[in-house]
């Protein structure tokens, strides 16, 4: 057996990932050897890494040919438009997260180096995951993302609740990885290939689907675990609440894009011919997630936990798009993932706005009377909540429109109606936040100090205004999504 050296044709499409590896390793070195002032550079280095990677990803996306996607390393790595759009989304959302996390890390005395480095490795994992052309690359990317996330949750090692959350996340995450791996082995057994294209072909040609279906069922469970879809959502609220807010901010936003990539690569690109079977499973996961997420979110007093449950409900909406199992369906689900990642980044960042040394804002009551103290920030939070609730003209509404359309397109009227009813129930708990800010008065328990960090304030303003702006000009993003799946 000869060792084949990678050629430039293999390496060129990998430029974003190579930049990320180099950047993360560079950060490790800087963190190790630099003095205090050098550490302040970590943030800018991390941002520069993301920007460079995004530049290469954009170049790859513009050059991508929908008919003939770039296949490197014998098809283990795909440089198609789907990966391009998802990567750009991941990098952009991560950049927002990095900027918002900066003052919190400094104030709470958390290790900046560890945070940015772990996040960059997670971003690398996500990049690899969404570009995966084979089950091996997929798993590799997924585990890199998962391991970095476990460590991120335990970032504040003195916090008992944080360590507990990390342990829970690790155990359940490993379990789900095991399920996924088991499913993959079944699929491999049934199709004798690890390559997704080959699996697709074999699944389409096979007469007997028993073993393949067995494997796909496990894949669906694994995906549901990673997304946090009910009934595999148990880890999510505890992890989101227990983790330091900066870690929640990261794991709650960008990885949803990667999870969509995972779902599409496994179910769409791989097990596409079996969509008649798996779309029923996904539909029920959607119903359960909508019910569990929305109903449990109603009774939360902690905003962090409420947003965690709302994540579950948004996953349910995203699944409405997947149920369609066609190009427009995948495009709508991807649009939903992109919108949700942006909204989640803004929503968790609002908690950082109210946090300061000695006080970790996480309750809805912390927002009381915000309109009197800072009308502009109250207005920003209002826009974020309205967008999450799905009120037009904000981006969140169009995302809901897209997935409802996909569900109706798949002739699943009942599912669309369930989604619609839960959208109304969901609106209630977002309204509670608006109510706290505008209708209630601050009392002596409310934190009076807003963070003075300009970077966070600007980034939050930009992010919230983006939800409005993209709600008016969402055509380009939708067109990208549809083009990526060849739906136009």
């Amino acid at each position: 057996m000869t060792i084949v050296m990678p050629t430039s044709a293999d390496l060129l499409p990998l430029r974003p990932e190579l930049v990320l590896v180099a950047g993360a390793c560079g950060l490790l070195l800087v963190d190790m050897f630099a003095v205090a002032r050098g550490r302040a550079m970590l943030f800018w280095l991390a941002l520069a890494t993301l920007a460079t990677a995004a530049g290469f990803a954009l170049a790859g996306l513009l050059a991508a040919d929908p008919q003939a996607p770039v296949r490197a390393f014998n098809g283990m790595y795909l440089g198609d438009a789907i990966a391009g759009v998802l990567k750009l989304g991941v990098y952009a959302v991560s950049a927002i997260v990095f900027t918002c996390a900066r003052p919190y890390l400094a104030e709470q005395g958390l290790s900046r180096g560890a945070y940015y480095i772990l996040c960059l490795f997670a971003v690398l994992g996500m990049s690899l995951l969404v570009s995966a052309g084979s089950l091996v690359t997929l798993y590799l990317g997924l585990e890199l993302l998962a391991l970095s996330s476990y460590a991120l949750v335990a970032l504040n090692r003195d916090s008992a609740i944080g360590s507990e959350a990390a342990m829970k996340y690790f155990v359940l995450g490993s379990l789900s990885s095991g399920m996924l791996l088991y499913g993959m082995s079944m699929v491999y057994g049934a199709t004798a290939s690890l390559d997704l294209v080959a699996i697709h072909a074999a699944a389409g040609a096979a007469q007997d689907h028993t073993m393949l279906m067995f494997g796909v069922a496990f894949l669906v469970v694994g995906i549901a675990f990673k997304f946090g879809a009910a009934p595999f959502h148990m880890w999510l609220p505890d992890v989101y609440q227990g983790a330091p807010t900066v870690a929640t901010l990261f794991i709650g936003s960008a990885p949803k894009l990667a999870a969509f990539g995972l779902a599409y690569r496994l179910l769409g690109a791989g097990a596409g011919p079996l969509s008649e079977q798996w779309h029923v499973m996904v539909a029920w996961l959607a119903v359960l997630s909508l019910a569990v997420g929305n109903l449990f979110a109603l009774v939360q007093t902690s905003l962090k936990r409420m947003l965690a449950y709302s994540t579950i409900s948004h996953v349910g909406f995203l699944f409405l798009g997947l149920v369609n199992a066609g190009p427009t369906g995948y495009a709508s689900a991807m649009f939903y993932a992109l919108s949700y990642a942006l909204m989640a980044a803004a929503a968790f960042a609002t908690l950082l706005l109210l946090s300061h040394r000695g006080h970790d804002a996480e309750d809805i009551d912390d927002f009381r009377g915000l309109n009197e103290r800072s009308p502009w920030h109250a207005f920003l939070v209002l826009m974020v909540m309205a967008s999450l609730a799905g009120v037009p003209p904000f981006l969140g509404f169009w995302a809901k429109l897209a997935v409802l359309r996909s569900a109706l397109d798949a002739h699943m009227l009942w599912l669309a109606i369930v989604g619609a009813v839960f959208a109304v129930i969901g609106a209630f708990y977002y309204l509670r936040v608006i109510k706290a800010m505008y209708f209630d008065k601050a009392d002596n328990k409310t934190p009076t100090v807003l963070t003075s960090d300009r970077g966070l304030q600007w980034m939050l303003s930009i992010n919230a205004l983006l939800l409005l702006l993209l709600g008016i000009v969402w055509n380009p993003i939708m067109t990208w999504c549809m083009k990526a799946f060849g739906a136009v």
Partner: protein
Amino acid sequence: MDFLMPATLPLLSLLIWLPILGGALTLTLGNRPESARRFALLIALASCALCAPLYLGFDNHMGLMQFVEQHAWVPSYRINYALGVDGIAVALIMLTAVTTVLVILGAWRSITVRVHQYLAAFLMLQGVMVGVFCAMDAMLFYVFFEAMLIPMFIIIGVWGGPRRVYASIKFFLYTFLGSIFMLIGLIYLYLKCDSFRLVDLYAVPLSMKEQTWLFFAFLIAFAVKVPMFPVHTWLPDAHVEAPTGGSVILAAIMLKIGGYGFVRFSLPILPDAGMHWAWLVIALSLIAVVYIGLVALVQEDMKKLIAYSSVAHMGFVTLGLFIAFALVHTGGTAAAQLGMQGAMVQMISHGFISGAMFSCVGVLYDRMHSRMIRDYGGVVNTMPWFATMFVFFAMANCGLPGTSGFVGEFMVILAAFQQSPLVAFTAATTLVLGAAYTLWLVKRVVFGKVANEHVAELQDMNLREAVVLGVFAAGVLFVGLYPKPLTDLMGSAIAQLTTQVSASKVQ
């Protein structure tokens, strides 16, 4: 048809975006309430002035949409930024512009906290409501329809009464629940004809089963907004808790959006289902007229009484629209037109009357800080000018001939009589019931001896309040004495609607 009217000036866009941008600018005048008031009034007056070219440039004899603007907005989902108006929309837009000016004037002194946010919310609301009346694309309509919720939610919740939180959330959730089914209906229609443009939706053939489903999806959305019995329960709460301006806008404009929705969506898109289910809507309208009229009789809160009277009066709008189905079926096209015409006149008239009634309560509330009828009595002794106005609007509310309240209701009853004397008779009980609750209200609040020392200290209304009520009174009298300009304005739109209603879409 889009190319027949090359509009040099995007008048409708201006009417929508001037108040919205003006509202955004008002937000920046946070620490200067006096400038905020002046600026907001200026914007509202400018929007009012824009209505002049709209009315003058509108051709009454053309049945088509006018002032059309159309641009691709979201090509990947075939959503257009398509605007256009017919006579009904023009009348409602003018009503909106005038009412907003009066609301801003009315709040000049009574709102003292966060003035700039209050004014900004109303200006933005105005732009969004005008957008609802102009939208010629179903998704654009839906966006405006829903975007109204947030400003109104804030208005009720921030400047409202003691139970404002409950009322505002109830208002939001009710309307949101209603409209989300309409959204599903619209997506269904979109998948059917690959367009959100209303003209395309009007043309698409639909089976009876599809029409029935869609009919109920739209019915929920608009019935909540109108509001019709039995989904009217949010309205008394919202009205009572809202500040005066909020109540005026709710009653004068927002309820009309429900009626307008029937005219734009249910009637022309689903004529067969409308025909089949007209009895249901007619029955609900009659319940609203009679039962809600009785409920209004026993109210102790002035605002609640007027809120229930609004529900009863809006019953005439839905009655007039749906009696037309029965009439075209039996060949009474002229009577059908009369019914719809009456419904539309009633919308405009109720806009003036209910707006005025709530403004009257606002005038009293600013002085006494009470809405309870028992706290008043003999107001005429201390506020003679105000009492004159109040009695005048009360008469209009009962439907006294010569006021606008009479015209619409009379036309609807006349049309209903040609279909079924029973329906007409039941509807006509409103004249008795309306007179009963309104006059009894007047008797207890205005007439009699001075009830207590607070009433004895009352000052008559000032010039600003007189102007607000005077403009409302002028509107009531004008429509009541000379409704011809209004009916001419809406005539061709009504004629077209009658054609759409009578044409079957089942293939």
